């Protein structure tokens, strides 16, 4: 309901979590009902600790740093559920752009294409900040970053984990002797974190 689960888990698995939650609650209720007949009574301390942890999680929900997580992950993207680049360039998501650039690693093919993407600022040590998304098969445990280099304007101050929407053009730049695609922004807008920040 509060979309917290979307931060941790691919939406496909939400029903599994819901079913598991219901099953556990039913089991808990059964156990509670049969508690007076048990030879070894339930330890009040373990119950208290469990309740305290649950309340803490509810009061202070986890707020994972996508940038920190992404900076320590390999960049081998999982296969796209449906690889189709029929979409006009300005309708491609950031992840679709990254997949396209990896499957067609020919920067001049994409130069000049319009770009309209959103993502969080990914800061890797010693590198220029990128705009990135986390792709997941299941949950944050298997999250893989998909990042695009951005030609940040001089007055831009991208902060790690900040969510931005960028409109601009795909260009090419030579970096360390290699031609690469770089997004040249025309507009950069700060946006709230989307309800479902993880992409399949």
């Amino acid at each position, binding site marked *: 309901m509060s979309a917290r689960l979307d931060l941790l888990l691919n939406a496909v698995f939400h029903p599994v979590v819901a079913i598991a939650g219901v099953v556990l609650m039913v089991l808990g209720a059964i156990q509670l009902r049969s508690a007076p007949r048990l030879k070894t009574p339930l330890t009040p301390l373990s119950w208290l600790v469990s309740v305290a942890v649950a309340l803490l999680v509810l009061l202070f929900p986890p707020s994972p740093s996508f940038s920190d997580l992404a900076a320590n992950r390999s960049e081998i993207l999982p296969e796209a559920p449906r690889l189709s680049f029929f979409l006009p360039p300005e309708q491609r998501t950031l992840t679709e752009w990254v997949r396209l650039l*990896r499957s067609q690693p020919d920067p001049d093919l994409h130069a000049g294409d319009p770009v309209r993407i959103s993502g969080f600022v990914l800061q890797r040590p010693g590198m220029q900040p990128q705009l990135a998304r986390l792709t997941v098969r299941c949950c944050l445990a298997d999250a893989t970053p998909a990042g695009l280099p951005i030609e940040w304007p001089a007055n831009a101050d991208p902060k790690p984990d900040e969510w931005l929407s960028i409109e601009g053009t795909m260009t090419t730049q030579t970096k360390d002797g290699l031609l690469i695609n770089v997004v040249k922004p025309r507009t950069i807008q700060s946006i709230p974190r989307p309800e479902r920040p993880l992409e399949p």
Partner: protein
Amino acid sequence: MSPKGFGSSMGKLRLLSVALMGLGLVALVQQQILLRRPPRLRSVAIQSIRSGAAALDVRFSRTMNRKSVAENSRLVPHQPHQWFGQQDRFRLLLDPGVLIRSPQKLVLAGDDQRGLVLPNRTLWWDPRSYLVAVVVEEEGEQLKLRRKDGSWSPLSSIEQRILQLEPLGNGEGVAFVTDNDPFKLEVLLRQLTPRAISDQAQELSEPFPGALQSLASGSLLFAHLSSNQRGELLVQVGGIEAGSDRTWIRSVNAKRRDLNLEVAGAIRLLPDGTGMVVPSYDGLDLLSMNPDRNGNAPQSLPGSRELKSFCSGSGRAVLLRNWPDYRRSIELVIPGQPPRQVWLGEEGVMATACDNRGENIWIVLRDASPTLRDELLLVDSSGSVLKRRHFPGWYLASGAVLDVDPATNRLLTVMTDGDGSKRRAALIDGSSLEFELLKPQVVLARWLPSGGELDEFSKVRR
């Protein structure tokens, strides 16, 4: 527990321990062998969607050091090129404008990310397209392929007439439409095995002809074909009866998928295989390859426009726009941008072509006053005329297309003389616009792209 039973348990435990230790040892040995095993080349494939003159996709058995691969691999004769990609998939791209005049020898070398050296592999690769043409014979017309030495190899029997010719974009076949009886057309496909890449120099050769397959036949009034660089083939046929029109796509693995489309003309597949351009009564619609299942609304470009040429796989295209005052304009379409006018005039536009990025656009114009005259223009993407030339005494043949081979920067078309008695395939240099007419009498001529893939270096995959 009795001493005998205790001894038996101990024996089993000892046996289990030994078995576990043995398994651990096997795993350790296997790990050490794999750690020391050098990287291998897994596959090499000709890539037809590229921004340069030619491209090869190279796949290794593990993540390689791109810089090391780029520094240690070499092309003979040397051509300016770059290595792109990451992890275990790389692309060798020959720079735009490079002219390939002979087969290339590619020596692949480099280190993987752990510094283990890839054993050198030598490959031969000929990225130049082959010319296929409908040649006029005494008894009729015949589909033929022109070998690199200039001789011709037949790809079909002699037919009364061959109306259309469509090479598959992956080089694995040529589709054509024959007309041997009134109102009876037949769509045929000559399958080919490309031999443009090999690990043996002597095995580099023209495509090997395979089976001839009939795709459609019977009481057909029209047939239209279009192929993309993946090698898919769109077939549109229709007969005399209303509602007899059929459109389907033949996939690379020969599966047929019917399309339920209402169209106002010939459909063209996008070169990169992601969609198709469908003429409608209001303009041009861009549809995905699965228009029935995909819920996306088509993207439309309104106006009296015709699709003339695709600029390879870059998503760019050249359109002809007809204006109400009988003028015509040529537009370059770049994804996400409004069409860019590169030429406007009153002459007839006979054919156009563009390079991979649409930076060079060739236009054949016909002026009928005071006398009939064809002119070839080379313009850039902003419409500046870079070069122009006339073909004294020669004219573009009716229905002829202008086809580009990026590897040699040569245009191919069919030209006729003044009275139409001579009809020749013309090779035009894309920069100087100098042209050369080939000897045999032809009706149609197209480039057959080079193709092929080496997998595990034991066989050419069909």
